[in-house]
């Protein structure tokens, strides 16, 4: 709703719920998307919501991922491995299955095919190619979904429709599950030097002849600066309180918040607004004086690019490490699928583990691990 609004009527900006510059000057905002009617009104077909637990009943949303959340292959692969290692446990508990995720994903994607396409829309997955670090996940998932894994050069646009080149001639593509970033999907609309995209793809998309999942410009809803406004945004559109709370957050762009943050740096976690993968952040309690002072300087130089949060006592989970079984901090990323007929949540998720003792950084790019996650029926 928020995305439909910022690319449409812009009411929540006009009402002052979200500061103008966070929308218009957000690099992830795509002005080109304004006025584009996305098929079935769905922008974020696949979302990953990072959730943490800080005590018995308190869950917080740590971060939203609305671009192209990754990690589904770990979710499926983790289940497969655990099943082999501990098959008897699955027999003893009613563990909700996750193996149907690829099927659910395909049916979600089919449901959002442009109106007027055939009963049996063609879905394809667009990958940057075998040199991309996530290529394994792409080919794994495409295989499980039973859809073709295509690269930009396999596709072309003719008369505002997208086709794939096959040995039997051109075949129309209705839905593209794309794992290529906005910047690169169409050299005629975005970065002209992109070799990964399809010239004219955006034109076909704007004409309503192909569905892109996720939509272009969804990043405008998931960055860490917008995150802090999410409770207000939810209230504005739904007139309801959000069920899952946000982690209390100080916006360093606000001078009052900034001075608080600067005074309490050793206790806080400070993150870059546009950062991801656990880079460019400061975990106060675990940092040296020098690191803190260094960060203080960066904060003062460009406060608007940072937010700060209290250091959360993330819940831990027994983990098997070199020294035996020990507690390690975890968070949970369930995947939410949104199609033409509503939302589905796969009963499971990606549980990420900080492998280093005491560490709170669970990102896989920083040596984090993953765990199989069960949803058990009692």
């Amino acid at each position: 709703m928020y995305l439909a609004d910022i690319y449409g009527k812009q009411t929540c900006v006009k009402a002052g719920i979200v500061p103008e510059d966070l929308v218009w000057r957000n690099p992830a905002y795509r002005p080109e998307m304004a006025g584009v009617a996305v098929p079935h009104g769905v922008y974020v077909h696949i979302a990953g919501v990072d959730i943490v637990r800080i005590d018995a009943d308190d869950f917080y949303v740590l971060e939203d991922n609305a671009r192209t959340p990754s990690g589904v292959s770990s979710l499926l692969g983790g289940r497969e491995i655990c099943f082999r290692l501990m098959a008897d446990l699955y027999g003893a508990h009613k563990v909700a299955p996750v193996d149907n995720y690829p099927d659910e994903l395909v049916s979600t994607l089919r449901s959002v095919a442009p109106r007027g396409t055939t009963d049996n829309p063609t879905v394809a997955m667009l990958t940057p190619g075998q040199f991309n670090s996530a290529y394994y996940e792409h080919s794994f998932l495409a295989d499980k979904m039973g859809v073709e894994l295509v690269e930009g050069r396999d596709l072309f646009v003719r008369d505002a429709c997208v086709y794939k080149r096959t040995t039997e001639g051109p075949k129309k593509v209705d839905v593209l599950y794309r794992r290529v970033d906005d910047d690169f999907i169409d050299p005629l609309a975005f970065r002209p030097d992109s070799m990964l995209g399809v010239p004219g793809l955006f034109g076909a998309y704007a004409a309503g002849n192909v569905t892109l999942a996720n939509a272009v410009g969804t990043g405008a809803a998931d960055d860490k600066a917008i995150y802090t406004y999410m409770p207000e945004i939810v209230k504005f559109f739904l007139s309801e309180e959000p069920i899952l709370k946000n982690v209390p957050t100080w916006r360093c762009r606000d001078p009052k918040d900034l001075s608080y943050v600067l005074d309490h740096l050793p206790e806080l976690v400070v993150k870059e607004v546009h950062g991801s993968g656990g880079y460019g952040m400061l975990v106060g309690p675990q940092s040296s004086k020098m690191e803190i002072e260094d960060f203080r300087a960066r904060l003062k130089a460009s406060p608007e690019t940072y937010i700060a949060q209290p250091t959360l006592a993330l819940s831990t989970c027994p983990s098997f490490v070199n020294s035996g079984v020990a507690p390690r901090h975890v968070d949970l990323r369930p995947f939410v699928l949104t199609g033409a007929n509503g939302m589905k949540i796969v009963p499971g998720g990606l549980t990420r583990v900080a492998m280093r003792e005491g560490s709170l950084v669970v990102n896989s790019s920083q040596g984090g691990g993953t765990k199989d996650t069960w949803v058990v029926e009692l």
Partner: protein
Amino acid sequence: MRIRIQHRTAYIYEEPAAAIIQVLRLTPRNHEGQRIRYWRIDMDQDVQMQSGEDAFGNVVHNICFTRPLDDLTVTVQGEVETHETHGVVKGTMERFPPGLYLRETPLTQSDVALRKFARDRAGKGAVLDQLHKLMEAIHREMEFNTKPTDVETPAAKAFELRSGVCQDFSHIFIAAARSLDIPARYVGGYMLRTDGQIRQEAGHAWAEAYAPDIGWIGFDPANNLCPSLTHVRVSAGLDYLGAAPVRGSHQGGTAERLETTIMVEHIGAQHQQQQQR
């Protein structure tokens, strides 16, 4: 003032291109300062054109050829009547609040030098005043030269070279204005030359900036004036890429060669000349 425009672009391929796809922003729209009397785009090859409108309100045509072509000529011609508005642009299609035009793009990113230049030259006056000073300074300190820059040269680089073409002048103006928190955008179009020269090598480009209480105002730093009767506004965007007359890609074929001829003439003047004869 009535202005007639003919803009011909020929694409010649040494080896035929297997497929060509192009996005054209070649069609002007009415606003208070200009009325389109007629306008048409012609291709010398049969093709279906899909027309639409982009987010910035530009008229967009998508064309694609899927058969091999040796060459392709796109001819745009039309007649526009312009009215004096002293640079103020009103009655355009606006989807975004001015705040959007503070976004930086790769082509209009400012660097330390450019920001300092903007601060020093613009001074502390009213926004309109600052913008005029900025335009004068760019016109004064930049050298017009087609050699050192191309369509991909970002503002900061052209500024460092202190030379470029109207595109670079505009990018620098835009980057400088945005660094002062003044919304600014890129405009592509045609300009009638005052020296009577009709045939031109390239289209023209200038900038528009937003001043509170007035609205969007055109600034042509290459000519140090606010566009008026002589300027025909065709497209607008955050930078050249957003307003580019043609963005295209061709598959197969080698060495695309471009030949562009543009004729911009004052119809009244021709009329007068004829009468004098």
